């Protein structure tokens, strides 16, 4: 119960436009209901509520651009109760949202509580803080009501990091910002550029590859699908998502986020799947808790998610929750892909095209369907040994597809 705020769907997101509300004051809402639609750098996204309640007020107007963390609507009734809860919660929350990186992983958790992140800061200040890795909560604002401006962030960064580091960071940030401001309408491109630049700048990647004999997996799918109607068939990507999720239960070190210089292993396994859009760019919706779901459940969700990615109706939760990402080139693509990790995640699994190849089976050369599986790992969080173990587990999964 409380305020519904503009969710953060990625560390680079500073604001989004409210396209329309699907509710009006007085409407009852249930957890998971879609209450509106926002236009973000990731396309049109449906926003969901995370608790049951009644809409008491819609503060944001349709067409309005709203900064991340700002109140969009008030849900529930008891004002006094809410205010009291808020006061209690604020200090704890501020500690939690140390960095934008952390903020993005806790979207859902954050929205359950009264919001928090109420410090006033200009969008530019927020962006500069992100680029310079400054915790906005620690910056003193010089504007009216303590509003934080760009110069406050810079002053704080100079003071805490020393002149030299500060200059270097400013320079690097300038590249990203210049690209960002030059092409305002291509916001998805910008957001990818910013995330990938950050990844390349901060994450020391290591790369591993293994070739997986897909004979057993493909036979298994054929066996399953033979008896099924078209709309119930399991396609290879579905099996791969499930196999990755299962392998992660055995090598959990790769599932989670690197924030505040520490690895945070996540309990939920939410598999992001990069979907490239034909008009350019890509979105990465996630299959939540994929390790707990059956192939059929994943199939239903995945097929639906792809259609919605094309139309622009992904849900905020789907787009902000991935704990690891898969990129798959499909059947017409290149043979293998070495990916760039999507920060603050620590690993990216790349699948190439499944194609027939001569390989050695029981001492003889045979032609088998072979899949290249790669892992890009964050060397700050894990070592090649862990990555290698993961690929081994993944291979095991696909050699025994009946257990997947």
């Amino acid at each position, binding site marked *: 119960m409380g305020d519904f705020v503009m969710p953060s769907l990625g560390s680079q997101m500073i604001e989004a436009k409210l396209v329309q509300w699907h509710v009006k004051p007085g409407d009852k809402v249930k957890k998971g209901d879609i209450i509106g639609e926002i236009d973000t750098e990731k396309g049109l996204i449906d926003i969901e509520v995370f608790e049951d309640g009644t809409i008491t007020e819609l503060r944001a107007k349709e067409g309005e651009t709203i900064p991340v963390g700002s109140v969009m609507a008030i849900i529930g009734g008891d004002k006094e109760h809410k205010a009291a809860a808020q006061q209690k919660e604020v200090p704890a929350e501020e500690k939690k949202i140390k960095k934008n990186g952390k903020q993005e992983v806790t979207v859902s958790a954050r929205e359950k509580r009264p919001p928090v992140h109420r410090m006033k800061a200009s969008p530019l200040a927020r962006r500069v803080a992100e680029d310079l890795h400054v915790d906005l909560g620690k910056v003193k604002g010089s504007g009216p009501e303590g509003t934080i401006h760009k110069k406050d962030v810079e002053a704080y960064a100079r003071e805490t990091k020393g002149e030299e580091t500060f200059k270097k960071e400013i320079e690097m940030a300038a590249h990203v910002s210049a690209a960002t401001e030059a092409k305002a309408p291509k916001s998805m491109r910008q957001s990818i550029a910013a995330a990938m630049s950050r990844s390349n700048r901060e994450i020391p990647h290591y790369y591993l590859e293994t070739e997986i004999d897909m004979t057993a997996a493909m036979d298994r799918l*054929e066996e399953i*699908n*033979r008896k099924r*109607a*078209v*709309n119930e*068939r399991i*396609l*290879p*990507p579905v099996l791969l998502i499930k196999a990755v999720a299962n392998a992660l239960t055995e090598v959990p070190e790769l599932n989670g986020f690197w924030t505040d210089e520490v690895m945070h292993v996540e309990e939920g396994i939410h598999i992001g799947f990069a979907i490239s859009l*034909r*008009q350019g760019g890509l979105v990465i919706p996630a299959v939540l808790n994929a390790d707990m779901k059956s192939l059929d459940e994943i199939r239903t969700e*995945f*097929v639906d998610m*792809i*259609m919605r990615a*094309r*139309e622009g109706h992904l849900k905020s939760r789907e787009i902000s929750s991935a704990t690891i990402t898969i990129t798959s080139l*499909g*059947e*017409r693509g290149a043979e293998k892909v070495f990916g760039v990790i999507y920060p603050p995640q620590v690993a990216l699994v790349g699948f190439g095209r499944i194609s027939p190849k001569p390989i050695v089976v029981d001492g003889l050369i045979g032609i088998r369907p072979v899949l290249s599986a790669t892992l890009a790992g964050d060397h700050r969080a894990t070592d090649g040994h862990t990555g290698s173990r993961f690929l081994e587990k993944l291979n095991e999964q696909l050699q025994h597809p009946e257990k997947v």
Partner: protein
Amino acid sequence: MNQIDYLSIIKKHLHRVAPEADLEKLRPADDLGTQLDIDSMDFYNIMVGISEELHVDIPEEQYDKLRSLKAIKDFLASAIPQN
């Protein structure tokens, strides 16, 4: 009975899956994958749509062959009994 207009049904489902594609320029024998940049999941979604609308089973082994407007249309014409 009336001839079913397979072509417009196929195009309808192509449009649903690939709303940004220019279907006017698509020639009957063009490969849908390369012309419209349709991947296997998109293709699968098209097959699901068509099979549900026309109540026809499209075996998975056929997918490889059904890569053009003409191929899909011919398949449907042969798979669905004409009265």
